[in-house]
């Protein structure tokens, strides 16, 4: 598999979306990761079971999740499962990642993006900042409105 640069969205590193440095080691397939001891970066295809990573989460620095089509939403669940299990490293959305999907991805725990087509940073900024209130708890820090209503 080709090594994919840990490009930020539109090549514009956004500190708000990153908690650590981009992974340098090439991401290996889930199968390869499970059969070797020293990999720190893994790539999940859309149909891979993210829970297979849980026993060895501590050694992972980067999990790249593939979006073969923006319509394929399995990666959102994969990301949340990893964050819910305590994964703190880089969670990268790669593939058909479009500007209108990025806010949802952030809410599911993604903090880096490798879109196949460049994203206009201005549009992205508007998109990410648009919603000041959210209805449900996600993997991000946003407080759901029921929490704001009831403290």
């Amino acid at each position, binding site marked *: 598999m080709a090594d994919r640069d840990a490009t930020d969205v539109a090549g514009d590193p956004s500190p708000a979306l990153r908690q650590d440095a981009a992974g340098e080691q090439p991401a290996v397939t889930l199968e390869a990761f499970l059969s070797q001891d020293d990999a720190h970066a893994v790539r999940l295809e859309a149909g891979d079971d993210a829970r297979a990573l849980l026993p060895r989460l501590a050694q992972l620095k980067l999990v790249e999740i593939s979006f073969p089509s923006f319509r394929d939403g399995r990666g959102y669940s994969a990301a949340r499962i990893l964050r819910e299990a305590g994964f703190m490293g880089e969670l990268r959305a790669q593939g058909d990642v479009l500007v*209108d999907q990025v806010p*949802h991805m952030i809410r599911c725990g993604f903090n880096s993006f490798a879109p196949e087509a460049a994203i206009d940073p201005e549009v992205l900024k508007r998109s990410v900042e648009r919603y000041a*209130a*959210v209805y449900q708890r996600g993997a991000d820090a946003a407080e759901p409105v029921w929490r704001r209503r009831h403290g």
Partner: protein
Amino acid sequence: MYRYDQYDQAIVDARVEEFRDQVARRLSGALTEDQFKPLRLMNGLYLQLHAYMLRVAVPYGTLDSRQMRMLGHIARTYDRGYGHFTTRQNIQFNWIKLEDAPEILAELATVEMHAIQTSGNCIRNISSDQFAGAAADEVTDPRPWAELIRQWSTFHPEFTYLPRKFKIAVIASDTDRAAMRLHDIGIQLVKRDGRIGARVFAGGGMGRTPMIAPEIAEFVPAEELLSFLEACLRVYNRHGRRDNIYKARIKILIHDLGADEYRRQVEEEHVAVKALGLDPPLAELDRIAAMFGDPPFESVESPLVPNGDAAFAAWLDQNTSAHKHPGYRVVTISLKPIGGIPGDASADQIDLMADLAERYSFDELRVTHAQNIVLPHVAARDLFAVWSALRDAGLAEANLDLISDIIACPGLDYCSLANARSIPLAQKIATRFGANGRQQELGELKLKISGCINACGHHHAGHIGVLGVDRKGVENFQLLLGGSGAEDVSLARITGPGFSEDGVVDAIEKVTDLYLARREDGERFLDTYRRLGMEPFKEVIYG
């Protein structure tokens, strides 16, 4: 009724701006049609045969007069003077210009309305019992729960690109007026040990593979409902099929896994997610429920005023139902005038219904899944005035649940998926049976027409169903018998080879004649069919 607070309003306002931005990018060419399509669909904007169609959400079918008037205004200003009420208790406008859509959404937002998630592979408008808050048999008003689910499902970040669309219904009585078990998730609120909880069904649906939802949980307490739904959706999002659009609904997953295995996976997932603090405190349900309290009903009984008008008496008998409060009735306004288009209302009619709601029904209206409008709380003494106004507006057809109260999809007259025209057939059937007391003689008979296999017209759930298909370039209509979307839920069976448009009307006449000849005391068409079975009906049609 639910009222937005500053958070709800901010979210809807942000959506208007987001969509304005998306439309601008589409018009500038920055977005391809392929990229724009799922974005506009998530705002209910479809490209149909002749124009864009905009589907506006009416959460659990409840409206006030101000919102209803806004729908009339949109029909008048941006459409051709009418709107079409749908089987998901929403309204569609069929002649919308793309460049007007952001402004329409902005106008809707001023009356706490939107078109969020009325299409797309996401959680759709939550539907409910149109008699909620008025029905004598409910254990609680289901709408606060539906509102809680509406908020949870709005822009849910994990479930916006599901394998396929996802429909949820919430009811709270044993009588099912919402086809609850024909939903991806159907919830019946029940009382156990003095507490209300959710009995959850999953994996029902119509479409090309109709299924009745099996029970997944017998009692989920209020404080765990949203995390339970989160678990239901996550199992589906991860494992539902994405290789074939026709096998992508949750019903296929649950059918393939088996209800027991699906339930096991959901329960396992629920244990994990409920610990994450996803569930709002009960105070949130209480906050919402406080907005759905009873209106100030008069405690003095107002008996029905005797009136000599036979047409009024017929309407009273057919189109009004028992109310939980003495002296009140639930009025169903039929949008099925004989020879008309099922579910259509003109801007003037919409305004009139708003006026009547404001004056006579504590400012409330409901849209029903059978494409009618309900005035939920009308004092008996006002019924004649309401009826008179409806009659003058062509809205007093006394045919609720009769054979001319037809559910029909828009069909080939509008829809780009359709194989056949549903509307002209509905008009022919209504005309054939609507005169000379024929439909009254037949009694309750739910007839439903879909113009293609996607079953938007609920033909699987019709006591009599009609499915339009394309047979070598010619419209052909298959006849089905024995379905029900009520608490006695069942799926209709096809009788045999299809018919021409006139042929299927004749066939319906033959089966209803057989029913009249063979029915026993008190039997509805459906009951007689169930007792006799398909064979005698087939014989009269094809014999």
